[in-house]
Structures are given as structure tokens and as C-alpha cells.
């Protein structure tokens, strides 16, 4: 057993921290916070492309495609650092599409896409959810008709975040309507500037933008089909096994700032941190953050051993996102009346961060598989309970 980083991983962690400290700009930090940690906006592209040049965006990939060939533990550590320090950390191309192409794509496809993903030049937007296909993803029915040398696409995607700043759509669409729902889905890469695509903003309670994306007679070249036709649902599920994880870094930072706040804030003649109830709450959160850390790196450990995380990724995602919500809820309680003051307001504390993340946290247990779906997976796949 060993629950610490290796010497090399520690050195890399220091290097990453130094780099972030040196290269972060207030504009990038604000942009990332406003966007919801996704990648693709101009300021983010600047710093991420510099990081990518060091191989840090896709560190586990083979060197020929722009990776470093290092451990998953190192890769997970980098993502955690990025989240903690306010960089974009939600990468669709580098962390979801790329690994799928690496595993299931043709050599041609790998050569065409992977280096440009690894360099941070290209970002994809996730194209899964539709109005009638949320938790039941297999109900998606954006239609892709086979027209010989191209597919013709028609339909509507909903809550497809990143589409307004990404380059391509990582699209799940229906290529066969006559078979079982999950057997007629294909994955494609679609240039978001293709004629016939209309992206309409939907503004969330977090202030972030997500989108409705309408496809009207959009032509997609055959070469953009990922792997085999009608195998898309399988790829998508396999990718989730590898990629379902939630770095807590962003919320961990809020927690650390909250702890400092209670030490510095004097109420009734003594620091808030001396209040027994606040001590209990903060110690509990600190414990849950440690639990999350162990669940998070467990996934990396399984991958490094050559395994595939099973129910453990659902467990990590659920625990981490629910922990995030508890962090900001306690944060709001600790701040009391001040908690409601937004950034820029007179008397706002911690730059209004707590109320902002209080709002953002609510979607964490919904997207990328709700907590309920995750618990189904834990029970059915992890514990083999009957469907």
C-alpha cells in the first residue's frame, strides 16, 4: 500500500503549480468562472495551449499523439490542480472524445484528430442530451441518414454546453431506427460551423451558458464517423467507464478560503473558528474532502493497473458532487446574511464566491449522469442487483 504520490509525481505537481502561478491572468480566471470551467474561450485557450505544449493536457497518451506516457495518477493530479487554481478543467476533446478515438478510432482518424486535441487547438462540445433523452440517453433520435459519401443530419440537441465556444460537436446520433434503441446509435465529429446548425443560448441559474442546437439538413462527411456505424452507444458507455470522474479542486478551493475566513473573522470577541458548531462542520467537510481524494485517486490507481473502473467511478462522481454541495451549503451558513451578497456588491465576502458556487453546485449532481442514475449503476453493476 501507498497513499502518497511518487517523488516524480510530487515534482510534477510542483512544476504544474509554478506554471499556473506564472501563467494565470485575471482575465483567464474571470472568463473560466463565467463560462463554468469549460474550455474553448479565448483566454483559456492561451494558457491551456501552453500547458498542452508540455504534454499536460493529455499526459497519459502515447508520445506520438502528443502525450507523455505517464501514469493516470499524474494525470488526475494535474486535473485536480487545474480545478483548484481556477483553470478550465472540463475538457471534452482531450478527456472524453480523445480517449474514445484512441481506443476505437481508425489510424487515419487518430492521426487527423489526436495531435490537434492534445495541443489544445481543438475543443469539442458534448452532443448527447436531447429534449426526450436525458438519463435515458438511448432514447436520442437526432437522425443521421446515410447518403453514400455523407450523412444528412436533422434534429435537436438540448443542454449541449460548450457548443458556443467549441470547434466541433462530439455527436451521438441515430443511424438506425429499426433496431433496439441502443443498437442504432453512431458517434460523429461535426464541425460546429457547418451550414444548417443553429446554436441558441440557454442561460443557467449559475450564469453559465448552455445551448439548444438545431440540425437542419447538416452534411457530415463519412470520414467523421467514429469507429463503426451503430456502435456509438457502446463507445459512449465505454468512454464513461474511463472518463466519469469529478475533480473536486474547484470546491476544495472555496473550502480552503472559507476556513481562512473563519480564522480571520471575529464575532462576539472571538474568531468564528473557535465556535464549536463551526469547528464540527468544517472538520466534517475536511474529512469528506479527504474521502473524495481517496475515491478520486482510486480511479487512477485502477487505470494504472490496467483495469477499468466499474462502479467506483459512479461512486466518486456521486460522492464528490454531493460533497461539493455540502461545502457550499455550509459556506452559506457560515457567512450568514453576508452569504447572499454577490461579487461586486458593497460588503460582499470572499468575492461572492460562495453564493456563486452555491448556484453552480446544484447541476453537478444532475449532469454527466444524475446521482440517482449513478446509484443505479453502483447497485446493478457493483452489487449485481437485478434490473
Amino acid at each position, binding site marked *: 500500500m501507498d497513499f502518497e504520490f511518487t517523488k516524480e509525481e510530487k515534482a510534477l505537481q510542483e512544476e504544474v503549480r509554478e506554471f499556473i502561478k506564472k501563467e494565470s491572468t485575471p482575465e483567464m480566471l474571470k472568463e473560466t468562472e463565467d463560462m463554468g470551467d469549460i474550455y474553448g474561450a479565448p483566454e483559456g485557450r492561451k494558457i491551456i495551449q501552453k500547458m498542452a505544449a508540455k504534454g499536460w493536457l493529455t499526459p497519459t497518451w502515447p508520445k506520438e499523439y502528443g502525450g507523455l506516457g505517464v501514469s493516470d495518477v499524474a494525470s488526475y493530479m494535474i486535473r485536480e490542480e487545474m480545478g483548484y487554481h481556477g483553470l478550465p478543467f472540463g475538457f471534452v476533446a482531450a478527456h472524453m472524445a480523445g480517449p474514445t478515438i484512441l481506443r476505437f478510432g481508425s489510424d487515419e482518424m487518430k492521426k487527423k484528430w489526436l495531435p490537434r486535441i492534445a495541443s489544445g487547438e481543438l475543443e469539442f462540445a458534448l452532443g448527447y442530451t436531447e429534449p426526450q433523452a436525458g438519463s435515458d440517453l438511448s432514447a436520442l433520435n437526432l437522425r443521421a441518414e446515410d447518403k453514400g459519401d455523407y450523412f444528412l443530419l436533422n434534429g435537436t440537441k438540448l443542454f449541449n454546453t460548450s457548443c458556443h465556444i467549441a470547434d466541433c460537436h462530439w455527436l451521438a446520433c441515430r443511424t438506425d431506427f429499426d433496431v433496439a434503441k441502443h443498437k442504432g446509435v453512431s458517434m460523429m465529429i461535426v464541425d460546429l460551423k457547418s451550414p444548417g446548425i443553429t446554436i441558441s443560448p440557454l442561460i443557467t441559474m449559475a450564469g453559465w451558458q448552455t445551448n439548444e442546437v438545431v440540425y437542419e439538413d447538416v452534411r457530415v462527411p463519412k470520414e467523421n464517423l467514429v469507429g463503426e456505424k451503430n456502435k456509438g452507444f457502446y463507445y459512449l458507455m465505454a468512454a464513461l467507464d474511463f472518463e466519469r470522474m469529478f475533480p473536486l479542486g474547484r470546491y476544495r478551493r472555496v473550502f480552503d478560503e472559507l476556513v481562512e475566513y473563519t480564522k480571520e473573522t471575529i464575532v462576539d470577541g472571538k474568531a468564528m473558528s*473557535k465556535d464549536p458548531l463551526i469547528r464540527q462542520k468544517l*472538520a466534517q467537510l475536511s474529512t469528506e474532502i479527504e474521502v473524495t481524494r481517496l475515491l478520486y485517486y482510486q480511479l487512477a490507481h485502477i487505470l494504472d493497473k490496467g483495469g477499468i473502473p466499474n462502479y467506483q467511478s459512479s461512486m466518486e462522481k456521486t460522492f464528490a458532487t454531493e460533497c461539493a454541495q455540502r461545502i457550499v451549503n455550509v459556506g452559506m451558513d457560515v457567512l450568514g446574511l453576508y452569504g447572499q451578497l454577490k461579487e461586486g456588491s458593497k460588503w460582499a465576502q470572499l468575492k461572492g464566491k460562495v453564493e456563486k458556487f452555491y448556484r453552480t453546485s446544484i447541476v453537478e449532481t444532475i449532469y454527466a449522469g444524475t446521482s440517482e442514475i449513478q446509484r443505479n449503476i453502483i447497485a446493478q453493476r457493483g452489487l449485481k442487483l437485478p434490473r
Partner: protein
Amino acid sequence: MDYDLNEEQELLKKAAKGFLSKECKPLFVREMEENPQGITPELWQKMAELGWMGLIFPEKYGGIGGSYLDLMVLLVEMGYSCLPGPFFSTVILGGITLMEAGNEEKKQELLGGIAEGKIFVTLALTEATAGYSPERIAVKAEKDADDFVINGTKLFVPDAHLANYIICVARTKEGENKKDGITLFLVDAKSKGIVITPLKTFAGDKLNEVVFNNVKVPKGNILGELDKGWPIVKKVLQKAAIAKCAEMVGGGQRALELAIEQVTEREQFGVKVGSFQAVQHHCANIVTYLDTSRLMTHQAAWRISEGLPCEREIAMTKAWVTDSCRSLVALAHQAVGGTGFMEEHDLQLYFRRTKAAGVYFGDADFHREALADVMGL
């Protein structure tokens, strides 16, 4: 990072599981709850022959020289089988205290005897104030020529009825700093003036009141230094806390299995109970509590084994495992339903034991408060 047990630990785990599944069946556990001794000499001797009692003692004291992590592996299996008896008191509370504080002579004299299963030792720490802070130590030891004389009442002393020796944590000096002035005495349990009265406990643990009435102890029986006993007690408490966590994790594993057995067999409304999402989510929560408890316990035990700083991890772990394992057994009861409420169902054994284990060596609130200190709050 490496989350796995090593090969020897896997072997130890397998061997312990095999042995306990034969020698420590639920019926035996129930019998021992009623039996005033709480253990049979036969089982105790078999355990000694397996080398369990000497697992963590150095070879020169008749032990096997295993690590604390090895011990944790064993304790998980003991928790899984609800092993009754004085293993915890003798090896962890007695043995570890002797290892930490005993001089060469005492170690030579006692550790080998413990390893052979011939000597029982326990720790008399808590009192009527029922807590684990130095302020709660009031039993007095006063110097009298070459002896010390102990007076006062210790409570919740495990297995004192079997003990050859009782390590008594006594106050030898009064002052502002309560951590100062605490001394550990190795007391022959047959000494004049000791009165042991068993307490009736809900988990079947053999706890006792031990009254010290002008009990004379030679000063050579001080473990460690006069007045400087608290740091030793603290170390022992930390190791004992994680050892309890290991037991809870083992018990939690069994509770999960009992829940899964029931919900995959029982049918209601024409389908398996385990196919209902409400039940599935209970089970998902159970395994989350269990896995996280196991991970935290492994990490803390690993840090103890490696001699790394671990105050933070120990506080977190005891707090987390205490709350989580209690919740998980309660959820298992909800999943199992009325059957689990029956005395003859094994789940109730774990429900009672987990709650008791949570209180030992500091409950969740106690450890969160300790953690708050470590965090500089």
C-alpha cells in the same frame, strides 16, 4: 500510489477468514455474549498457535514482527466474524502500551507470554467521567516510600476479569496542565485492594468497573516515565481508534453481504426486492459508506505503519468510519426488513457492535474536534 494489500497480507486475510468462519460462527458469538468469560481457552490457544497475538511484536520478544497494517488486515476479519474475547484488550491496549512504554525487562517478561496466549493484559483508562481527554483522569497514585498507592475507580475496563495485569492510567501530579502528571502503572491484577465488577453491555463486550482501594504498586512497575504518561496514552489511543475502525469495516462488509443476500432472494409484488430502486439506492449508499470507510482505514493504518505523520488522518478516519458504519448497518436493516429485527438474524449482532465500537477511543464529535485543532481552527 497503490491501494492494494500485498501478497502476504492477502494470504493472512484468507487464512483468517477461513479460520474464523469455522471457529467463530454466529452461534458461538451469541454463546460468548452470555458466557461471563467471553472466550474459550481452546479458541484462544488456537489463535495463539496461529501467531495472531504476537503478530506485531518483534521477533526477539517472541512475536512475528509484522506491521500495524498486517494487524489491521486481521482485525477486519475479526470484525467480520464478530470475534469475542480479549484480543483487542490484550494485544492492542495491553501489548501496544507495553511496546510503547515498557522497559526491556518488562517487554521480555510479558510480550512473549501474550504471544503464547498465556498472559492477559488490559488498560484501565476511562473513569466515571467517560472520556478520552487528560482532564478526565482523576484516579490518584501517591508515592509511599518505594511504592505508589492507587485509589479510585476505573470504568469500562475491557476484560479486566481475565487480566493478569491491568495497566492503570493514574494522576500523579495536579496542576494547570492536565497532560502533565499522568503516569502508567503495570498493576498485578491479583493485588490486594482491587475489586472487579462486571458491567452488563448491549454489545456483549466484557467491560468492568475496577476499584482501586489503596493498591500498592512498586515504582519499578511504572511504564515510561513518572508524570509523562499522557503522550503514550495518546499514541495507544490513536492506534486503538484505527484498530476499531478496522473491526467496523469488517462488520460493515458482513452487514452489506447480509443485506444483499436478503434483497436478491426475497420477492414482493412478484419481483425481487432488490430490483426496486429505493432498495438499490439504500444498497448503493451502504457500499459507498463501506468502501470509503475501508479506504480511510487503509490509509490511516498505512501511515501508522510507515511512521508518517498521521494525527489528521486518524481523527478523520475515526470520525468518518464511526458515522458511516453506523449508518450503513442501519440501512442494511432497512433493506433486510423485519427478518433482520429477529434475534436469530445475524445483522443485529453488527448493529449493536458497530454502535459500541463508535464510542470507543473517541466518537465522531470528539475526533472532529481533534481534527479542528489540527486544521488550526
